[in-house]
């Protein structure tokens, strides 16, 4: 081969074998590749959440505390992310179904109760109730907060696709059920009475 051609051929080969990309773009792709929110949420649900249900607060006790002093109940039992006005309770207990509606099941904690203290949500579940309410995930464990946000969405999908179908069409008014879940409180004038529970487990007793 002509010696003069060696250098241009080498440059051509090197150029063709390289792909030039902005460093921030490459980093962004790497981050997106590495994290699978659906897998993370599934793993969180099976190995962390279901193994920590005993950390949930007794519903009767919590409601008594809220009725007595909502601010004190919030301080003692609620979980909050950062400096947020939203807060969450991780709750478990047993109750009696008062009504089954399109998007929620209203329950009373007492067998002769008329007014619901809790409503278990069965559709339109958005937000961070379980991610932040169970108090089992730490935002500081995530380099990219987008990943932390995506987990919330995937957890909500688990609730709607896997949890709600286990009980929604199998219950009727008057049934006694056990439940564990998380309640979000955004507006104390609306969300405390009844507490709106995003379910983790609901079973007929």
């Amino acid at each position, binding site marked *: 081969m002509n010696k003069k051609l060696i250098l241009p051929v080498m440059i051509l080969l090197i150029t063709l074998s390289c792909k030039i990309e902005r460093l921030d773009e490459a980093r962004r792709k790497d981050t997106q590749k590495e994290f699978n929110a659906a897998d993370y949420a599934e793993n969180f649900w099976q190995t962390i959440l279901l193994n920590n249900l005993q950390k949930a607060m007794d519903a009767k006790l919590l409601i008594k505390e809220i009725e007595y002093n909502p601010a004190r109940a919030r301080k003692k039992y609620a979980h909050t992310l*950062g400096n947020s*006005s939203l807060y969450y309770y991780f709750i478990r207990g047993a109750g009696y179904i008062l009504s089954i509606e399109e998007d929620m099941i209203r329950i009373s904690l007492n067998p002769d109760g008329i007014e619901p203290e809790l409503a278990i949500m069965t559709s339109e579940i*958005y937000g961070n109730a379980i991610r932040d309410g169970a108090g089992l995930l730490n935002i500081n464990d995530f380099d990219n907060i987008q990943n932390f946000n995506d987990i919330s*969405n995937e957890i909500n999908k688990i609730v709607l696709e896997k949890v709600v179908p286990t009980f929604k069409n199998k219950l009727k008014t008057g049934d006694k059920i056990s439940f564990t879940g998380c309640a979000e409180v955004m507006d104390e004038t609306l969300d405390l009475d009844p507490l709106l529970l995003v379910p983790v487990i609901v079973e007929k007793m």
Partner: protein
Amino acid sequence: MKKTVTLLMITVLFVINVHIALFADEKSKIAVVISTMNNPWFVVLGETAAEKARQLGHDAFIFDSQNDTNKEASHFENIIAAGFNAIIFNPTDSDGSIANVRLAKNAGIPCFCIDRVINSTGDAVAQIFSDNYTGGMLMGRYFVKTLEKKGNYVELLGVLSANPTWSRSKGFHNVVDNYNELKMVARQSAEFDRNKALEVLESILQGRSDIDAVWCGNDAMAMGAYQALLAAGLADSVKIFGFDGTKDVIDAIADGKITATIMQFPKAVASMGVETADLYLKGKRDFQEKIPVAVELVTQNNISNYTGYGKKE
């Protein structure tokens, strides 16, 4: 030899004492690096941070990155060379700005991110940001309710490399995408800029006018969208939703020109960032790194509680 050593020690001690006496009262220098000062929301953020730093007894200087990572990098080099004590940092790029924070950290200058985060943990001392994801979700809920679960809408995104752009958009879509009759007919970036939003929406409206709503990732774009809709004669029929809580949009909600926005609290975010830096400079070290700050939905129903950039006193 002993005499020489003793003399040398005395000289060293004397120099140290003189140095302490001269500089004991010297103020710490805090740099406030802001992604862009060409947007009133960031002007409030930067000026509040600088003012708070001065109130706490520090010198404060604002650096405008003009949404350019190269300018931002150059600011960091100058800040390090000038021996600043701390940096209050509003990053231009969630990934691209990490290197600057690391550069400062390696030079012994702590960084405190405000409003925007970097995609890293352990580099900034603290990252105090609006809970944009929850804000997007709150807006999504209100959007669904206002449009009664059906209609065509346009989304105007912010700067594509900025974390808030996607946090807001994802929070919104995680609600709205569950309603099949709400159709996003166009989605484009207007880079958080009022003029770009005007241009982008004008161009979209040339293609179709059957739009019921425009969801904008910030208030500057919401005002640009309003201008475009006004020019097209659609301002009364198309609902506009923003994000930020700037004064012009709060006024526009009161006047019925814009439907809703999400109030962030730039003054609170900036003040928290500077207070954290102040505590750090006084020796505190155990900080929670990532701190989301609450946001609130502002509509015509509760507009009387709000003013530009915050709540009424």
